């Protein structure tokens, strides 16, 4: 039985990011909405230009994949980066990470994460500004890493994670995303943080939960076989925690996912070989 068509899937995923966007707006202010507007417009415009350039029907832009990438990007980016940085990240995501590889379905990397990583590397000075009032103080995650007890006790920390889980849970219930991916991701992350003896609270901080429901579940860049998906998501979960602890940035999920994207076909192949 057909569950939905691709367009419906994409728009549902975009809609499911709304609770997370609302939580971010509550925490960081209206800047999140401005940023959403900037990324969605830049991504859509870029999508249209790329489709036109390749001689594909412009109607393909209505499939919603650019909007999904923009929504994910908005959550991933710090809320008060200059509008140019947000737009650049969206253009990186759609133009470079998606259309340079042949458009929807052909991209090896998750467009939103690739856009985020490119913007991160290009404009590193803006990426520690997770501020609510534009006076510079480090992100809650950076604080937790520094051992600030205040940051670790506030329940607000859990709010984005809860909101993302609410939206993502609906996706899983409607079977618009494969439940194996978030589950394996969480198992990988939990196992690694237990191995590294980390505080359990680090698991709900940063974009980990959001990534578990919205980024890892991107079917285009995930492994395709069932076994491969378990392997891929668990690997990314483990990498995310490990990079967070030992990498040079406070939150390295984007990099973990990009590395996972490269390894996804290998996961499929490895599982197939192992079964033989």
């Amino acid at each position: 039985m057909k569950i939905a068509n691709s367009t419906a899937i994409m728009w549902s995923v975009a809609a499911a990011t709304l609770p997370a966007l609302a939580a971010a707006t509550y925490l960081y202010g209206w800047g999140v909405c401005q940023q959403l507007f900037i990324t969605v417009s830049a991504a859509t415009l870029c999508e249209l230009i790329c489709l036109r350039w390749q001689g594909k029907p412009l109607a393909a832009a209505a499939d919603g994949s650019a909007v999904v990438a923009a929504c994910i990007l908005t959550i991933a980016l710090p809320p008060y980066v200059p509008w140019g940085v947000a737009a650049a990240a969206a253009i990186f995501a759609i133009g470079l990470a998606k259309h340079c590889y042949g458009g929807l379905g052909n991209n090896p990397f998750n467009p939103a994460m690739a856009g985020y990583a490119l913007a991160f590397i290009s404009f590193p000075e803006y990426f520690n500004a997770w501020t609510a009032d534009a006076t510079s103080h480090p992100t809650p995650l950076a604080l937790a890493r520094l051992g600030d007890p205040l940051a670790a006790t506030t329940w607000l920390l859990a709010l984005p994670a809860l909101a993302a889980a609410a939206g993502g849970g609906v996706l899983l219930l409607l079977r618009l995303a494969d439940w194996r991916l978030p589950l394996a991701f969480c198992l990988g992350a939990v196992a690694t943080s237990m191995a590294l003896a980390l505080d359990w609270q680090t698991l709900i901080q940063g974009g980990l939960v959001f990534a578990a429901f919205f980024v890892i579940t991107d079917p285009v860049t995930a492994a395709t076989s069932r076994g491969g998906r378990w392997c891929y998501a668990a690997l990314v979960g483990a990498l995310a925690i490990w990079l967070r602890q030992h990498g040079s940035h406070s939150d390295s999920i984007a990099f973990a996912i990009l590395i996972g994207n490269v390894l996804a076909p290998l996961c499929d192949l490895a599982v197939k070989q192992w079964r033989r």
Partner: protein
Amino acid sequence: MLPNLNIDDLPLPTTLAVPLAADAQLQVQRGETLPAGAVLATGSHSADCIAPRAGTVSDFRRQPLANGNDALCVILQDLDDTPTPLLLPPLSATTLPQLLKRAGIVGLGGGAFPAWRKWRQQLRYFIANGLETETAAYNDAALIAAAGDNLIARVRTVAQTFAATPLLALPEGVTRVPRANDDPMLRYLPAHYSLGNERILVQHLCQLDIPAMAVAADYGVVCFNIATVLAMAAAIDERMPLSDRVITVHDVDGGIHLLRVPLGTLLAEVRHYLKQNATALIGGADEQQIAGDDAVITAATTVIHWQADAPPRAAQACIRCGACEPVCPAALAPQELYWLAQDSRLPEMQAQRLTACLECRRCDEVCPSNIGLTALFIQHKKQLAANAAEAQLIHRRQQRFDHHEQRLAQPVARFSAQALKQRVAAMTKQVSKKQ
């Protein structure tokens, strides 16, 4: 949800075009007037081509067939509806294939395989397949409903002539055979198209794996569509040849009609009868062919769709969601095959067992991007077959050439008394050694 399963009879057409099998030799002449059931042509491998109705042979010409291709057809006109039973010697186990061949019985599930060639001396199971072999077909359900109480008895009659244990596969929940729900031959199976496939059916019913290219009969299992079984029963009990078949017709407004048509009916007759004015698509949903008015309805024609000329929904990009993988009855990875097909990587597609695809369309049904996967696979299967045929041809040519070269290179053998003496000596030695 089943439509109204009453079978209508198509009024007697003015013309019938009976297609001849590739190996058939013509037995009639132009102008000859024939009774119903007369042999028009006969071949060593095919079932006999018989006249579905009494009539006069007016012409021989190539006609397009509803299921694609074209064939030389015997054109019958001045038709008459009186049935004539066949004159045949009494039935015994060994004359059964003869009877089936003479009655022109071929598989009515869509394959049109000559029934007589499935007969074997030692058979274990006789499977009557009441599961539809095409999507959108209701032929089997209608025939089962029409046969009613007689169904079990008819299946048993045919199975007895084949000297095999009968099994009657019926779709779960859809069809119930009245008063015989507990007959040991009944097997209820989930109703999906892939179970109409012989190999998968045999696997389910007999726990027997038949190799992909093998014939189930060689493994002691013979499997017929229920329509074929009923045709065989008519031939065995009443000596009636196969002259009609039931087809499912979907009209433009979404209505479903079950029609009994004489084999060789032209599509125009059905169009006229149902007052349709649109494009006719033949076949289940898997490989639909557009057919013109002069197309001939054969034993292989199961479903006709009359479709208003609306464009089908455009395919979107594959998002690798993998929904096609768990539904594939042949355990293929349609999604991977799709990507390989994009670059026509045939060897890799073959390694992924493309040829095992049943063309059941379940991957098309679940694909959120509406990609016509089955059509793509059919196209590449054809390409694979063509490549294999060409490779074989090249191989044979090379072999022939090599043999020719070898022959030329050999010195011409001359008679030599010396050599003959030596050989005789060697042979006597061998013989004495043995003694």
